């Protein structure tokens, strides 16, 4: 609370261009991640989501090598990896972990290669933490249209498939008996997931992006038993954690030990964890009263 008041008093936070860009980009990504993440949790695909984001580090580093914006690398490699998982059998309950694990291994191998090449030939040691841990303050306002466009694609896929996706997530058999093409719906969702993960890679980094995808959704699922409420609540929690994280990161510029600011991704992920624990405590309180 004090931090909030402090920042409001200090006009710098809201006036700074980098902050505005970060708030807009981070906000869009947070909302998309919350909405899409609810289905990731319902479908028990958190591991797949995590693998897609880790693999994103290979995309980010390879994009840097060939002089492309990291976002293209994140999206490209995520979608490719999602397609590979689908081929190997990520939608079968028994093959899921194997498919994810295999693709994850290949992704890390590529990431280590590209990061090594980047360090050796391009002196990219400064870029590596950005790819791995993100830095929403370094993003440029020119990224906004692409981020919004990709976010809209992911949301459109999930909104279009909302009912069959929900039914197939509850029970593939029930959905199939109603004529839903379960595998097609699951594959389309995987595409939306890959895009969302790529957006999270951009804002909070390839290593941390699962936290933003899964954390707010898991917190929301503890608080409400209705599907669309859970999705909206997850988006709200995700947005609050992102914006509050920006605020704290801005404030931390004056914090010890370096007085050079703490990484913003650290704050966002920590706030997500706090929200998850608080939601658990709230849910337990509700059951006791009920």
């Amino acid at each position, binding site marked *: 609370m004090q931090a909030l008041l402090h920042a409001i008093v200090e006009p710098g936070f809201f006036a700074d261009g980098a902050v505005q860009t970060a708030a807009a980009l981070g906000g869009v990504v947070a909302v998309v991640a919350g909405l899409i993440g609810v289905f990731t949790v*319902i479908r028990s695909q958190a591991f797949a989501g995590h693998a897609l984001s880790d693999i994103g580090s290979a995309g980010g580093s390879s994009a840097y090598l060939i002089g492309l914006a990291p976002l293209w690398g994140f999206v490209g490699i995520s979608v490719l990896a999602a397609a590979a998982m689908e081929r190997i059998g990520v939608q079968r309950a028994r093959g899921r972990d194997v498919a994810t694990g295999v693709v994850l291994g290949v992704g890390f191998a590529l990431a280590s290669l590209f990061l090594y090449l980047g360090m050796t030939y391009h002196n990219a040691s400064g870029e590596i933490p950005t790819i791995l841990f993100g830095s929403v303050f370094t993003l440029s306002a020119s990224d906004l249209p692409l981020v919004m466009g990709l976010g809209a694609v992911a949301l459109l896929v999930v*909104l279009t498939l*909302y*009912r069959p996706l929900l039914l197939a997530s*509850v029970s593939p058999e029930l959905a199939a*008996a109603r004529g839903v093409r379960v595998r097609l719906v699951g594959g389309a969702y995987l595409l939306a997931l890959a895009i969302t993960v790529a957006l999270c890679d951009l804002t909070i980094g390839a290593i941390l992006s699962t936290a933003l995808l899964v954390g707010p959704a898991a917190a929301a699922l*503890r608080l409400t038993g209705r599907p669309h409420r859970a999705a909206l609540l997850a988006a709200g929690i995700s947005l609050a954690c992102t914006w509050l994280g920006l605020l704290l990161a801005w404030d931390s510029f004056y914090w010890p030990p370096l007085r050079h600011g703490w990484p913003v991704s650290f704050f966002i992920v920590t706030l997500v964890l706090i929200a998850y624990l608080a939601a658990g405590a709230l849910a337990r309180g509700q059951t006791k009263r009920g």
Partner: protein
Amino acid sequence: MSDEPQSTLTHAVPERAEPQVAGETVLELAGVTVELGARRILDDVGFRLKAGELTGLIGSNGAGKTTLLRVILGLLEPTRGTVTVNGADVGRSVGYVPQKFMLDPDLPVRARDLVALGIDGQRLGVARPSRERRERVARMLGAVGAADFADARVGRLSGGEQQRVLIAHALISHPSLLLLDEPLANLDLHSARAVVELLARIAREQRIAVMISAHEMNALLPVMDRVVYLADGRAACGRAEDVVRADVLSRLYGHRVEVIRAAGRVLVVAGEGDDAEPTHPHHLDAEEH
């Protein structure tokens, strides 16, 4: 087994007059055979289900019950034979309750939401909320005795409560045929009896053909109008008292079995020795034609 020639139909049971209450034929299977590789899962299965009747699909694990249900649902194309629902090829007027599955207790889907997905869960987009829709769901929940836990998450309900919700989900789209895969497995006796009575009432009152698969027929005996008894992919069909007999089942199994009746219950056990019937009939059918 598959190298045997196709034999002609064997009437194992004398024909009997059809009860007058039986309605029109809702489902007709003729010569349905399913082969997966060299294995024959279903072997020339044929029977009819009529509106208002409750049929038990009885057989041990691996007898082909789930395969048969998948064929009726149109999820599996039979190698040979035809499936006709309501006079047309497999359409969407089949309600289905799958075998007991574990639902995540944190799944954000209330009993009410799952029943609503029974109306139009296959359609694209988000459902437009309306009072009519809400009332239709509430009526359905009431009809299966699920009104008390309509707002609970489905994954947190007991087995018997989940069955009621799934039945409501299957019934709300007004199917003419309701298929249930082992709905009584994992239910205690009291819940099993309540579910069976509910299904019998639904069949009678809503004039739906209800088919319940079970590996154990005793819970169904009091309400079952008809039985389809599966063994090794072959079927014997007819009224329970005509099919569940030592001679019929021995021919179906291809070896001697005994049917023991005691205290209103039926027990099918392997008979003495291995003196299998020499004829080893290929097909058995107690269905009236």
